[in-house]
């Protein structure tokens, strides 16, 4: 049993959830009903910044069929937040929490109405009279940082939630060595997660008296903590269960309906259900951070980076969510995967009265990569060095010291990833240098074709000292041989296929066929914490926990325990936070590496962009399930294409103007490039399970800058703001004399 060929890991096995999902029998949170259930509707803030003087619920309460209207005074501990508890559960007067009477954005909740049916709840929610006293607003992060700007939170001077610094080397010496300097200011937009399943949930009190929430999230135990905290209950009194989760991408990292459902179910002792509309989903969960990045980079004639300077400002919106970590990550990634002796970065996370921003696939890395990779491509142009060639001269290697003054964890594969992508994209090695093939132009004179290249890296797992752990438990049943296996691993399968991979890794670690493994998951009452399905960490972390549990369970089995049980907590190497002055730290324990090329056509008459071919080369360490890895790559490419080209969430004075999928456009099947070539490389991570790293975020990261580079190759114009909407494209092209037949 100890020496065997791979029986499960590395094979494309069918997803364990496939049949139920494709036949429509798998329930998602909105599909689950209980006898006697009530319905909830929320009343949201109607101001970007105001003090609520009074909430009059009498008319709502009097409507026949209304059971109860909850307001701020009903929330035992009226605060929540994943990293900082800075947001009231319900805003309004009468709460013990100071400042809970203030709404700081349109995404705040004021009241939760529970009624016998949904339409009565909706009608009652409208009958609530809310009296506001307006407060001064600020929507621009630069303005929010200035003296005299309205302050959103106590103890947060200048609205600066975090300020990270990188101080490395000697900038004056760096600039003195530079033969060429390129500078640019880059702007990225909001992005909506647009998962298939809008927020929904059902709350009830279970047989053991636990307030139980059936919901879709990314981390059952974090939801449990936050619900317990707000209700003032011990965590054992709260139970979180996830049925199937209809996508997440970071958008379910924070609370949506969990706490309000728990509050109502706990007080009313009846099941309470809520389903958000698409409009509510877009309006009331957080978005990807709009970030402005000013960069100035210097290099020698030989193409070697000698100085890098950046100022990064991220719009946090009204509440922190995971902004401290997202901007921390942006600060780390704004150097790109490059070596340089001299770096000076300042990164700010700034509160405004806009919609909150938070986790979204890539976690600050896509914005940073847009700036870093475009800077690199501009340097290549300025120095007349090929875009791949200049990367070969600068990318991180084994032992490279990052901006944070410490070496990358072992297993650095940036250079072979870049070279593999170049080869797959028409580059060839001549006399030791990479050169690209010429692009054939289309017959239609309105179309200009271009090819662009970019690369990137992304941490696997939590960063900067955030406690990182994952539990798994294994039970082996049988007598002479193992007849069946129960694996308890709580990590969220948000659609990426994590649970299939858990089963594969369990079978592999135990040397049993897949069919013998049964997974128990998604329930705080039956599993211990796994951490969140985020930071591309779930395969890595749960895989290591399963391996540890399997080794112990097999040992117990050999010692004749029947059943043989084992519980294991995996803890990776420690990380450390930024030094406040220099940024020195050991930020992460593992990384994945990626490079991409994009071939596209620009219609210079209409400003439309047609992505023809994407090559995505990804070092995932080990593809536990190659088809699922490809699914992640293709999905990330299309989502990133939407981010780069069309997804344009418009916010004015803190209010989202296009909360519908008819006006906030995401890619459809017709937008998917004719070819997405996914190339999976397997340079093992020394501490990853079977060498696995992660995959979910990496293929998102370089796509936007690769598109910018291809656009420049096609038209000679550098774009600095995404998405590249037709308006922006035509304006830029006309300014350069391009277009009009």
């Amino acid at each position, binding site marked *: 049993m100890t020496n065997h060929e791979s029986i499960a890991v590395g094979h494309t096995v069918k997803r364990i959830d496939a049949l139920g999902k494709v036949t429509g029998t798998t329930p998602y949170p909105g599909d689950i009903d209980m006898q006697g259930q009530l319905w909830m509707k929320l009343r949201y803030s109607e101001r970007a910044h105001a003090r609520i003087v009074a909430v009059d619920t009498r008319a709502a309460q009097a409507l026949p069929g209304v059971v109860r209207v909850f307001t701020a005074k009903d929330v035992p501990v009226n605060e929540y937040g994943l990293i900082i508890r800075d947001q009231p559960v319900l805003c309004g007067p009468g709460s013990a929490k100071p400042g809970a009477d203030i709404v700081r954005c349109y995404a705040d909740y004021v009241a939760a109405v529970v009624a016998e049916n949904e339409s009565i709840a909706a009608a009652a929610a409208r009958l609530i009279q809310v009296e506001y006293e307006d407060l001064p607003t600020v929507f621009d992060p630069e303005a929010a940082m200035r003296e005299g700007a309205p302050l959103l939170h106590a103890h947060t001077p200048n609205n600066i939630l975090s300020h990270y610094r990188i101080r490395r080397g000697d900038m004056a010496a760096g600039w003195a060595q530079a033969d060429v300097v390129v500078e640019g200011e880059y702007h990225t937009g909001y992005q909506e997660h647009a998962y298939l399943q809008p927020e929904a949930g059902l709350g009830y009190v279970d047989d053991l008296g636990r307030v139980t929430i059936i919901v879709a999230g990314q981390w059952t135990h974090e939801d449990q903590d936050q619900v317990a905290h707000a209700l003032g209950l011990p965590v054992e009194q709260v139970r979180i269960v996830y049925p199937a989760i209809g996508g997440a991408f970071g958008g379910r990292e924070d609370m949506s309906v969990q706490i309000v459902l728990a509050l109502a179910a706990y007080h009313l002792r009846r099941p309470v259900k809520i389903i958000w509309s698409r409009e509510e989903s877009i309006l009331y969960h957080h978005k990807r951070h709009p970030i402005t990045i000013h960069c100035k980079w210097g290099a020698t004639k030989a193409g070697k980076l000698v100085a890098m300077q950046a100022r990064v400002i991220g719009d946090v919106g009204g509440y922190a969510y995971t902004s401290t970590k997202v901007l921390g990550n942006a600060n780390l990634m704004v150097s790109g995967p490059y070596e340089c002796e001299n770096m000076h970065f300042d990164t700010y996370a700034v509160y405004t009265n806009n919609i909150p921003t938070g986790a979204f696939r890539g976690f600050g890395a896509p914005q940073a990569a847009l700036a870093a990779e475009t800077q690199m491509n501009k340097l290549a142009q300025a120095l007349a060095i090929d875009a791949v060639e200049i990367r070969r001269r600068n990318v991180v290697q084994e032992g490279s010291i990052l901006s944070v003054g410490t070496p990358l964890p072992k297993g650095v594969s940036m250079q072979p990833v870049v070279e593999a992508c170049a080869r797959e994209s028409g580059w060839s090695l001549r006399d030791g240098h990479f050169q690209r093939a010429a692009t054939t132009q289309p017959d239609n004179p309105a179309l200009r074709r271009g090819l662009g290249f970019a690369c990137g890296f992304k941490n696997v797992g939590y960063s900067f000292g955030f406690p990182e752990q994952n539990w798994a438990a294994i039970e082996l049943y049988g007598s002479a041989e193992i007849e069946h296996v129960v694996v308890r691993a709580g990590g969220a399968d948000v659609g990426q296929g994590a649970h299939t991979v858990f089963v594969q890794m369990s079978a592999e670690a135990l040397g049993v066929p897949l069919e013998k493994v049964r997974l128990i998951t998604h329930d705080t009452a039956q599993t211990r914490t796994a951490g969140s399905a985020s930071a591309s960490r779930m395969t890595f972390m749960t895989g290591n926990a399963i391996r540890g549990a399997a080794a112990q369970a097999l040992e117990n089995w050999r010692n004749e325990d029947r059943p043989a049980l084992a519980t294991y907590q995996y803890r990776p190497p420690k990380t450390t936070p930024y030094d406040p002055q220099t940024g020195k730290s050991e930020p992460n324990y593992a990384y994945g590496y990626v490079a991409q090329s994009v071939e596209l056509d620009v219609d210079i008459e209409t400003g439309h962009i047609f992505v023809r071919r994407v090559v995505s080369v990804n070092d995932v360490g080990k593809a536990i399930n190659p088809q699922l890895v490809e699914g992640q790559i293709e999905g990330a490419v299309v989502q990133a294409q939407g981010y780069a080209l069309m997804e344009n969430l*418009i916010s004015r004075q803190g209010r989202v103007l*296009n909360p519908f999928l008819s006006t906030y456009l995401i890619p459809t099947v017709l937008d998917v490039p004719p070819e997405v070539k996914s190339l999976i490389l397997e340079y093992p991570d020394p501490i990853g399970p079977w060498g696995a790293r992660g995959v979910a975020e990496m293929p998102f990261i370089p796509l936007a800058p690769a598109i910018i580079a291809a656009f420049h190759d096609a038209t000679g114009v550098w774009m600095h703001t995404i998405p590249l909407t037709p308006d922006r494209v035509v304006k830029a092209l006309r300014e350069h004399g391009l277009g009009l037949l």
Partner: protein
Amino acid sequence: MPLWKSYHIPRTVDEALATLAQYGGAARIVAGGTDLMVDLQYTDHVQPLEALVDVTRVQEMLDIHQEADDSCRLGAAVTHATIVKSTLLEARATCLVESCGVVGGPQVRNVGTLGGNVAHALPAGDGTTSLMALDAQALVAWGGGLHEWLPLPALFRGPGVSALDHGKDLLVAFRFTLCAPGEATAFKRIMRPQGVALPILGCAVWVKLNAARTHYDDVRVCVSPVAPKPVRAVEVEAALRGQPVGQQTLENAVAAAHRTLHPRASAYRATAEYRQHMIETLLRQTLPLATERAKTGEARAEGVGLG
């Protein structure tokens, strides 16, 4: 909660009108429902709608008929997909096929009707834009009993506001003259590159060349949206009428368009500046295309969507 209480499927115009009358304005006509269903779901209803009257089985609203005078009578309940498949319309009202072929996606075109599109009264309706260039008339059966043919613009009061009361008045059919030799049409629109989305700008043109095919005898142009209601670009037409076919005339038409057509910004679809650029792009595409069709007498619809 249900969105309506009862659902009626009349077979004749009279039956439809009688059913509507029976509800005294509390019913709504449904002719495909691709807009109406969205509206109903996003309106806060305390009570469900009394009734829906589905007119897509009314036979006289389902015909595409070439009349003796070489006009076409097109039933208002004909779907976009049916129009796209009509060889008569492709050859002799090409712009209508081209505009109906880009509405929504295949599912929307399969159930959505041209009459529904016009009755919804959006100034940028693709079908509307082409009907304007075809100088179409509409047959309205008013709830009061009167049946009358009206010029298309008379159906529009403002953006999304129809002259018809959708609880009483029925849009029965359209009528327009089919293209004769020397005449042709074309439609193009700016929308997202692929997939389903509302148009940013559409442009339909109809041209009639002289016998020698050297001059424009007559021209009709509709660019939309440039106003709260669909309007003809009369200055652009004037710049073309009687003028020789050629580059200078096209430049004059473009100049007239820039001078007189001023689209507004849409908060989330396009800036005014982009639309202004695209008017020129569309004119430079559609005018030469329609002119070429009129010269050769051959017209194959372009850009029609999948399905």
